[in-house]
């Protein structure tokens, strides 16, 4: 079955579920994706009426993590009559993970959410395609067979699907929203039973074997283009602080400039804040206007919490994430000790 056919089937099923939810008044609003305003993009959409259901689409350009629209929990975002809005949300695996983790962090109440599970087959790596096409204008992007087809005024190019999806999608193990007994009420559509996620993190073992100087050079080159636009922060469902640490004034811990030291610190601390919380959706890399791919940092974060605390974020809404717990037996091999 080619990518196009898969997507079509997923889209149809998703629309049926959405239609049911609205007609049975199980939800007040459905958050999903729709066609983007320019090629190689998609847009989020919120629909309340059955007749708008056909605006919901599913394709490999749905890179936004829709869970972002549910945070932070602000009192004003309630139904004017006082109750809480019931929300249906189109969820690929990482969106489902994000919703579950946000429930653990008490930002959303899963009782009011219907997770419309869909089996994601990967998100196209926009910047990689753009780089290949270069200066030429892209007019249409579609999937055919096992390829991504990019059409312009005078050209048509094909890219193998498996090579041109996001790095994170290549190693993804949770393609549809995870469900456990506790979550079965919230999940409809395609969801998968996940008890634990095994991973050998082979994709970053290459980077990990570099020397400190090599790592520093690599990271420097990776992050140097950053313009501190914070698109990554805005796209990330886990970045919902009302006052981000870089915007803080009393005191100003870290600079907002594009000096390399400031850039590195921003990404280092943002990574620190995402430990045990990041769901590897790749939205941050997808939205970056400078094309910075943060996948190795994301993978490293997953690796740290998996190896040290046997934790994967967003799988289970009853396990506390590592930064909210502690154990006498935690590893401390990094501590300074007498000889």
């Amino acid at each position, binding site marked *: 079955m080619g990518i196009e056919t898969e997507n079509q089937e997923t889209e149809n099923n998703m629309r049926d579920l959405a239609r049911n939810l609205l007609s049975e008044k199980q939800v007040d609003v459905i958050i999903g994706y729709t066609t983007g305003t320019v090629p190689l993009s998609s847009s989020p959409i919120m629909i309340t009426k059955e007749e708008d259901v056909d605006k919901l689409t599913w394709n490999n350009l749905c890179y936004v993590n829709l869970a972002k629209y549910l945070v932070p929990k602000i009192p004003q975002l309630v139904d004017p009559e006082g109750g809480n809005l019931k929300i249906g949300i189109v969820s690929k695996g990482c969106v489902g993970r994000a919703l579950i983790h946000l429930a653990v962090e008490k930002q959303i109440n899963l009782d009011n959410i219907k997770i419309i599970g869909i089996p994601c087959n990967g998100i196209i790596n926009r910047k990689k395609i753009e780089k290949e096409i270069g200066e030429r204008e892209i007019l249409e992007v579609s999937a055919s067979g096992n390829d991504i087809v990019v059409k312009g005024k005078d050209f048509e190019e094909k890219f193998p699907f498996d090579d041109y999806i996001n790095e994170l999608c290549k190693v993804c193990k949770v393609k549809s929203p995870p469900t456990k007994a506790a979550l079965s009420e919230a999940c409809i559509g395609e969801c998968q039973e996940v008890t634990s996620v095994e991973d050998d993190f082979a994709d970053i073992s290459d980077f990990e074997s570099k020397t400190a100087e090599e*790592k520093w*050079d690599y990271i420097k080159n990776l992050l140097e283009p950053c313009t501190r636009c914070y698109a990554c922060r805005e796209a990330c469902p886990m970045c919902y602080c009302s006052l981000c640490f870089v915007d803080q004034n009393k005191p100003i811990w870290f600079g907002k400039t594009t000096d*390399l*030291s400031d850039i590195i610190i921003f990404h280092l601390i943002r*990574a*620190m804040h995402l430990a045990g919380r990041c769901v590897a959706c790749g939205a941050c890399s997808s939205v970056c206007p400078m094309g910075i791919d943060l996948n190795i940092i994301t993978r490293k974060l997953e690796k740290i919490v998996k190896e040290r605390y046997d934790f994967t974020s967003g799988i289970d809404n009853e396990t506390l994430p590592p930064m909210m717990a*502690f154990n006498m037996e935690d590893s401390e091999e*990094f501590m300074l000790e007498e000889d």
Partner: protein
Amino acid sequence: MTVQTEQETGKNEEWEPKIIAFLCNWCSYAGADLAGVSRIQYPPNIRIVRVPCSGRVNPYFIIKSLTDGWDGVVISGCHPGDCHYISGNLVARRRFAILNELLEFFGIEPDRVNFMWASAAEGERFAVLIRKATEKVKALGPNKKFEKKW
């Protein structure tokens, strides 16, 4: 603004690292006091900041110290199980584990940031570990990674 340590401007002596040490009030600070009372000598490279518990130490303090020109950071608390506030050091330990791994991942010399446990009765151990941390930082040379260009 180029961040320079005092020793670098003008003086041509051998460079000595400046290390900021966050010591928990109940164990490590008391341990450092005991080292003083017992007149145990160690190299004069650390500057001590008193905090109530190692759990108080936010990664911001550690990173800010590195970006602000300190050559090294030491964080010391009570041994696990002996924390005056029961579990503050256990909370901190996880934080430090993750920070340490990220520093290493980013290629920022992890030997600059050292975590240790030293109790109020361990004046000798405190001095030994400080000596060790100082040697590690000295081997890395002055902290130049975060010098601002403008």
